[in-house]
């Protein structure tokens, strides 16, 4: 692990990266896939994966390469968008049954979801920058969020927080800013594309 970190550090220091692996992380149902789809739709015209109201819809890391985004002043970023499964500390198959899945489907989904969490954590060693997607309608002071942000800091991976779902009345971006005062927080609605121009601006700042 320390060798990998050292290599990443020297990579950043001496090599101008052509492609940037942008990890999209967060707890389940924050809108990670919706954001990944929004980015891919905006710049490639096609989606990356399917989003759902049932938690743990994304149970494998999925990615889209050659997503080239452009800033207002003509700069470009060549991204590999890496959409990761939601990180959680508990997975109860009965929650999926309550959402309408059969017991068999729910158990399979829970099994796959546990593997997905492990895969997402392993992928932290492979990404160059991270967007942490939080649901702006929920309390951000959660151990999973703290663990994700702590790991990014410890690994010295550049990251910012996206406070998603600002189209909903209950959303509260200020609460997220107050919870994580040292991190850049951008409020967006990935579903409707609200504030995406600010998001891309912040992304250029983060990576450059």
């Amino acid at each position: 692990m320390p060798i990998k970190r050292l290599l990443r550090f020297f990579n950043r220091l001496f090599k101008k990266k052509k492609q940037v692996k942008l990890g999209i992380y967060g707890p389940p149902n924050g809108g990670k896939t919706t954001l990944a789809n929004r980015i891919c739709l905006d710049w490639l015209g096609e989606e990356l994966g399917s989003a759902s109201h049932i938690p743990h819809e994304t149970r494998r890391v999925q990615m889209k390469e050659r997503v080239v985004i452009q800033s207002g002043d003509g700069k470009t970023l060549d991204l590999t968008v890496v959409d990761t499964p939601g990180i959680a500390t508990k997975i109860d198959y009965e929650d999926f049954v309550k959402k309408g899945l059969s017991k068999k489907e729910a158990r399979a989904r829970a099994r796959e979801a546990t593997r997905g969490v492990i895969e997402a954590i392993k992928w932290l060693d492979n990404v160059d920058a991270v967007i942490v997607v939080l649901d702006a309608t929920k309390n951000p002071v959660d151990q999973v969020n703290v663990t994700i942000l702590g790991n990014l800091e410890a690994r010295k991976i550049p990251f910012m927080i996206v406070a998603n779902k600002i189209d909903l009345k209950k959303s509260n971006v200020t609460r997220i800013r107050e919870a994580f005062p040292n991190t850049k927080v951008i409020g967006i609605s990935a579903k409707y594309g609200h504030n995406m121009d600010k998001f891309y601006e912040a992304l250029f700042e983060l990576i450059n």
Partner: protein
Amino acid sequence: MKKISIKFIPYEKMKKNMELVFDELKRGSIVIIDSKLSPEEESEIITKTMENVDLKFKGIEISTMDVSVDRNESSGGKFTTLIVEKLRRILTGRERGITIIGSANLVKKIEKTPEELLLYM
């Protein structure tokens, strides 16, 4: 009457064998570790949790509480205490604090304020 066991596991013991934590959690105990965990240790706990999840064990609720002198004592101006604490951290590689872990079957939510941890069963 419902009985809940609170099991104390020293940090060093947990580091040597993390499965001990899960043995206790599966017995229905709430585990207290005498240190704040590093982010890497927290992600290791999550990974191990996912490996342990099955039809009976649904996962964990975890929270850490920082009781470092920086927050509680620095305002008192005890410069020497701060130095001693920094040295302790360098030598032991540990942060002062506690970690509390409960099985998700038992603990529904842990809420944290700067002064207390609230466990909802």
